[in-house]
């Protein structure tokens, strides 16, 4: 097991600042995810750790050892690739044994270790198959087994599930999580899938345009996003821009168009704020009965989307205001038809407050 310290890493590609002052500790045994849209630098960072890229400045430390000058093949990281990168001219056994052979491990031990890791990856019996006889999921299991068998200090996973179909993706991420827990290998996992990141990670670093916006547990990045980028990238969020019109007991009143919304008071005084509310925090009712301390917006149902576990309503309010509202475990009777006039309640504790200019959480 090994901890990782990324020390002020910068990396430029022609015309692009791929990584900007990345400073991050990853603890031994941690499942750490780099989450962000494509082009945010997450894969660049992973490949820098693997030694495929050389950073322009800053340092990579693995297990308290500076590895900047250690070439990729001596870093002892196990990488799992997006397109599997299973050697097509080798059998499953040969693929998995590759890293052990290069380390001159005795043949008997190779057989033992390959057998053990194949069992873990549920590939026992597939030893002699060639990759073209395997499904995508099986190929990725070979990729994982091949990376794990060398007992790497760090496991690096570059969108390993993105080429698999949705169901397999869900199943595989559980398996990866279980194997990682069992072996305790420090793991850095790259994905653009926020749900995958929330499910699988101990901690998540949300990245955009070469910068880390927030590092935290799944709970923290979802419930307490550090800025509007994180709030919008992780999960779905309604944003409301408004002007502070008054303040009270730990609260402020923010005028958004013609409605006034009460929000928790930010630290420091601001005139303009950006408010954010998750769709599942909003309460939708057909009879607008006002209750104390709850901001309300009148509107009509413009669109209904049913996904099985929940119903999404798109509500249009005054001045072109739009709100997405989710209701879980919908019952057929409670479905609200299109064009119905409704009232949306915004509970005070559900409203997140950001600086309107910088987008930083206040």
């Amino acid at each position, binding site marked *: 097991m090994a901890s990782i310290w990324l020390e002020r890493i910068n990396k430029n590609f022609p015309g692009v600042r791929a990584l900007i002052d990345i400073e991050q500790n990853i603890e031994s045994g941690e499942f750490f995810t780099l989450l962000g849209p494509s082009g945010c630098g997450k894969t660049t960072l992973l490949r820098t750790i693997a030694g495929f890229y050389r950073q322009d400045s800053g340092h990579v430390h693995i297990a308290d050892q500076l590895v900047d000058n250690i070439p990729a*093949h001596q870093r002892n990281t196990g*990488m799992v690739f997006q397109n599997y990168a299973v050697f097509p001219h080798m059998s499953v056994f040969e693929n998995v044994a590759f890293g052990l052979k290069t*380390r001159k491990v005795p043949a008997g031990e190779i057989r033992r270790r390959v057998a053990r890791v194949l069992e873990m990856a549920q590939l026992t019996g597939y030893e002699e198959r060639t990759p073209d006889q395997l499904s995508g999921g099986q190929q990725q299991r070979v990729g994982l087994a091949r990376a794990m068998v*060398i007992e790497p*200090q760090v496991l690096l996973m570059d969108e390993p599930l993105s080429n698999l179909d949705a169901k397999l993706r869900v199943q595989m991420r559980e398996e990866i999580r279980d194997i990682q827990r069992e072996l305790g290998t420090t793991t850095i996992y790259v994905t653009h899938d926020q749900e995958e990141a929330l499910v699988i990670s101990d901690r998540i670093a949300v990245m955009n345009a070469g910068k880390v916006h927030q590092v935290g547990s799944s709970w923290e990045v979802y419930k307490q996003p550090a800025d509007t980028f994180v709030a919008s990238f992780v999960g779905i969020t309604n944003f409301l821009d408004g002007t502070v019109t008054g303040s009270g007991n730990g609260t402020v009143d923010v005028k958004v168009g013609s409605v006034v919304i009460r929000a928790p008071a930010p630290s420091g005084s601001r005139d303009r704020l950006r408010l954010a509310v998750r769709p599942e925090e909003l309460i939708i009712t057909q009879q607008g009965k006002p209750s104390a301390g709850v901001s309300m917006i009148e509107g009509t149902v413009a669109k209904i989307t049913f996904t099985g576990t929940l119903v999404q309503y798109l509500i249009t309010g005054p001045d072109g205001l739009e709100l997405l509202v989710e209701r879980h475990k919908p019952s057929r009777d409670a479905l609200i038809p299109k064009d119905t006039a409704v009232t949306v309640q915004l509970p005070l504790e559900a409203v997140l407050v950001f600086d309107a200019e910088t987008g930083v959480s206040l």
Partner: protein
Amino acid sequence: MSSSVAQIPPTAGKRLLGRLRLDFWTLVTIMGYAVVILLLILPLFNIFKSSFLSSETERLSLDNYREFFGNPYYTGAILNSLIVSFGGTLGALVFGIPLAFFTSRFRIYGKAAISTLAVLSLLSPPFIGAYSWIIMMGRNGFLRNLLGAIGINLPTIYGAGGIILVYTLQYYPFVFLLTSGALGTVDRSLEEAAENLGARSLRKFFRVTLPLVMPSVSAGALIAFMMSLANFGTPMILGRSFRVLPTMAYNLFTSEVGTNTGLASTVAILLIIVSTLVLFFQRYAAGRRKYASALVNRPVIKRLKGWKGLGAHLICYLIVALSTLPLAVVVFYSFRKTRGPVFQPGVGLQSYAKILHDVPKTITNSLMFSVTAVVLIVVVGTLLGFVLSRKRNVPAAALDPLLMISYIVPGTVLGIGFIVAFNRRPLYLVGTAAIIILSYFIRRLPYSVRSSASILKQIDPALEEAGINLGSPPARTFRKVTLPLMLPGIISGAILSWVTAINELSSSIVLYVGRTMTMPVRIYLSVLDGLFGTASALATFLLAATGIALFLVNKFVGLGRETIVG
């Protein structure tokens, strides 16, 4: 978890070794530059210099160029060269593309035989094809006599038409091999998508399939053009008063009535300029259409029924038959009874007895030179191909256009350049086997580099990264991962290289001395001396040797048709 296995102690020695291994590709790049400078730039610079040296005053001047452009006798050669080269290329496309398309998309019986015969027709030295057509369609050709008897008058085989015919039949296999290779990697769904969008077969072919394989088609056409432009033997035999640039350069350089190295160099430079322009045009045209393809669904091979099936078979067989005909005639004539230089009625082995008795050394020379050259070509070409396609640094990128110089240097020109460059110490190579081997090597090297680079484009770099990531140093990863995946392509490239090396005439005709004479040179001299029996027997020997080589590769490497097609 313990990571005892892979913990590499950072001792100074280990680290140094690691550095050196990482630098393996740097060494390869340096070697690439050494090869280019020594074998291309140095000879060409000498030719360039000599073209500006007045033959009278030995001073820098434009005399040679003035003389060339002032004389229609010389300038006409440029036009002639262009006519036969474009004609030959067009013919190669007209024959090569349909053959490639039919054999890779439809079930054609005898596909393996078609491929083999196509490769075989690449084989015969083109002037043997020329000679064969004279046997058939010359003044007293049997075909002319046969058809004349029933009132059909064949056009003359001498001049531009005959040369174009020989080029077409000689070079269409380049287009065929490259195009069918590319057709095999066009994802089926692309053609299906076109069909789904309502495109009928012809439209589908011209709007989707052909554009997708266009880079390969134009690469094949470029080879055909360059080969035609540089061809020396065919116009020497069929041209008579129809003079092209290579024959003119050769005559000026080796003329018994006073050589004119300056003017020969000027012709050489003009030849290079024409090649360069065409090369740039092809690169410009192909560079704008580059397609990264993910081969998910292999193309299907359809079975054609009825008239369509018959037509497709007929076209394929006809093309191959026409290109095999000259070879068959040569083989047939090699077994004719001879007395001295004269053919007699009946069958006999006199021609073979004669070559074994007279010129056994040429046979061993040819085999040794070509095999040595191919080994060099494959090793250096594969390594440089890797550097070009995987190492994206400036020195590696600059090596590519430098290597391309070899494309544009016809054999005759290179031969002249080698003589001028390597005729004094410490690089005294004139008259050695090495100078011929090196000329084979440098002439084929860019093809090998390109082909291995294009094979590498089909291999996901992540495979190599996976190898490295698993602890395998770059050189070992190349050996264990990349090389095995490249092997089918490398073998097919090696065969093509060997084929061209063993038939090489235009530079060896300049470079040979008595003891380094090769089979093609001997054949050419025999044709000139009217020893047609000897020429046919040697050519048949070449054909047989290559046929066997192809067969062996098929059998032992077990890669079947893909080996040849790449």
